């Protein structure tokens, strides 16, 4: 890797991209601002058509924006690509089926002035035992690790992963992320788009949520959870004043936010501290518990009705 610079790894400003589809124009990206510092591991989460791939394509210099700007370490994307500072693992497709694993790496390596040694990237992607295998005979997970090997060739400071595990089974996904974990520990900036909430949760420290071509939320995984549903605070109420306590809580936090089951009341709120204080101090609650909502419900709440295809079994 080259030197760490104080410049942001990604600096996207008021980015817009429209496509022509027959007589209409479709806006894939409508005004995205995004700044990612060097060394961050960021998940780009959103349903199909949210504009994730288009945004990443612009950052990679594969597509030109209709309006706005994108810079990678202070350079135009194409300049950063030529300098080997940014690379990517692209979505499925994009390999020549009649080449072997090693030949594919050699071919792509030959397009750069300088790369890491071919055998080294093959080993780091865990492909050494398959180096002579034809791409057509590799499984989806193996092909994805080959794309990862190709991305490692220029030893980029910024690695983009566009839905890297789409179509993989659970085992292959775990294996892929194990490889990535090892790599992220080396301090590379990593940005990945995904449908899988659990991947974003497990691997990223920051989540950027996109929907309808816009960034709708941006924060740590815990932030994102809290922002949508708040937290749920529950406690046992004293026997005598139960009805009165529930009524008080409903008045403050709204009818739908308060549920009672036996003596146990649960309140959903953005300000969990205030609820906790009220329960413990004013209402005599005991056995208090505060739980953060699931990322999935946060996702649904923020992006609207259409959820991520988190459990879609593709391929």
């Amino acid at each position, binding site marked *: 890797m080259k030197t760490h610079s104080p410049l942001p790894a990604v600096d996207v400003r008021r980015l817009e991209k429209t*496509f022509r589809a027959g007589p209409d124009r479709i806006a894939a990206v409508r005004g995205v601002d995004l700044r990612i510092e060097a060394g961050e591991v960021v998940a780009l989460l959103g349903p199909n058509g949210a504009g994730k791939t288009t945004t990443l394509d612009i950052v990679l210099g594969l597509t030109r924006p209709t309006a706005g700007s994108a810079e990678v370490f202070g350079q135009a994307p194409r300049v950063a690509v030529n300098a080997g500072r940014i690379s990517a693992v692209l979505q499925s497709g994009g*390999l020549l089926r009649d080449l072997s694993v090693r030949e594919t790496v050699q071919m792509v390596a030959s397009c750069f002035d300088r790369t890491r040694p071919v055998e080294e990237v093959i080993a780091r992607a865990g492909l050494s035992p398959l180096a002579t295998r034809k791409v057509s005979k590799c499984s989806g997970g193996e092909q994805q690790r080959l794309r990862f090997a*190709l991305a490692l060739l220029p030893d980029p400071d910024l690695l983009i992963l566009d839905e890297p595990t789409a179509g993989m089974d659970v085992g292959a996904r775990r294996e892929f992320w194990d490889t990535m974990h090892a790599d992220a520990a080396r301090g590379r900036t990593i940005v990945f788009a995904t449908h899988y909430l659990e991947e974003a949760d497990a691997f990223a420290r920051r989540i950027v949520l996109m929907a309808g071509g816009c960034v709708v939320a941006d924060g740590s995984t815990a932030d994102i959870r809290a922002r949508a549903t708040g937290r749920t605070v529950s406690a046992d109420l004293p026997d005598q004043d139960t009805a009165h306590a529930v009524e008080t809580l409903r008045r403050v936090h709204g009818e739908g936010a308060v549920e009672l089951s036996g003596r146990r009341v649960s309140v959903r709120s953005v300000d969990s501290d205030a609820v906790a204080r009220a329960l413990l101090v004013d209402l005599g609650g005991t056995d208090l518990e505060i739980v953060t909502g699931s990322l999935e419900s946060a996702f649904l709440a923020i992006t609207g009705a259409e959820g991520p295809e988190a459990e879609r079994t593709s391929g």
Partner: protein
Amino acid sequence: MNTTFVGLELRRVFRDYVTMFFIAVLPGFFYMIFGAAQDFAGERAGSGNVTMYIMISMAAYGAVTATTGIGGMAAVERMQGWGRQLGLTPLRDATYVAMKAMVAFAVAAIPVALIYVLGVVTGAEGTAAAWALSAVLVLVGAAVFAVYGLAVGLAFRTEAAVSAASGLLVIMAFLGNIFIPLSGTLLTVAKFTPLYGYVALARYPLTEGFGVDGVQEPLWQAVANVVVWAGIFGAVATALVRRGRERQ
């Protein structure tokens, strides 16, 4: 020049035995059947003999089969995402095209070399200039059909379409006066088909435009045919590249 890239591309083609059969073995076989083995093989044609005439025709057929396939597959590969993969490297589009063209010429040279060697062995006769010039014209003219393959690949984006485009070359070859000498109305129609001008031009150093019927055709007709078809294929391919770019 990126020798690794070109070398690997060549290795891909040579490893594909089915394609190599259609590019090299089949045209060579056609030459032996339609040319060397015929009774009229020794008859005069232009400054040489009929064997030479058929040798050039079959070499041209093999060369266009090669360039059509390579042009077509280049388009399909790029459409299926390989172009995006290469887009993550400093490789320029122009360099890519130049390297693919180099591969196409190298592969097209195989049937030409094979059939010309067969020609030497089986008694093809012509002036030294006719041998050399016809070989050059066969190779250079075959580039037009790389663009034809490219256009088909861009339009349909499947390997099957590229195979179909190569298959269509058989019909074009019949209409192009390659397999059997045409005459009458059919010959008049044939003069407007894509392979006609190319092969007529390639045989010109031997025939100086004289057909098997003894009628001399002016050089401009063959040239005009090649220029017009090159223009058509080029315009279609350019339009399709623009369309592809807009949708990406």
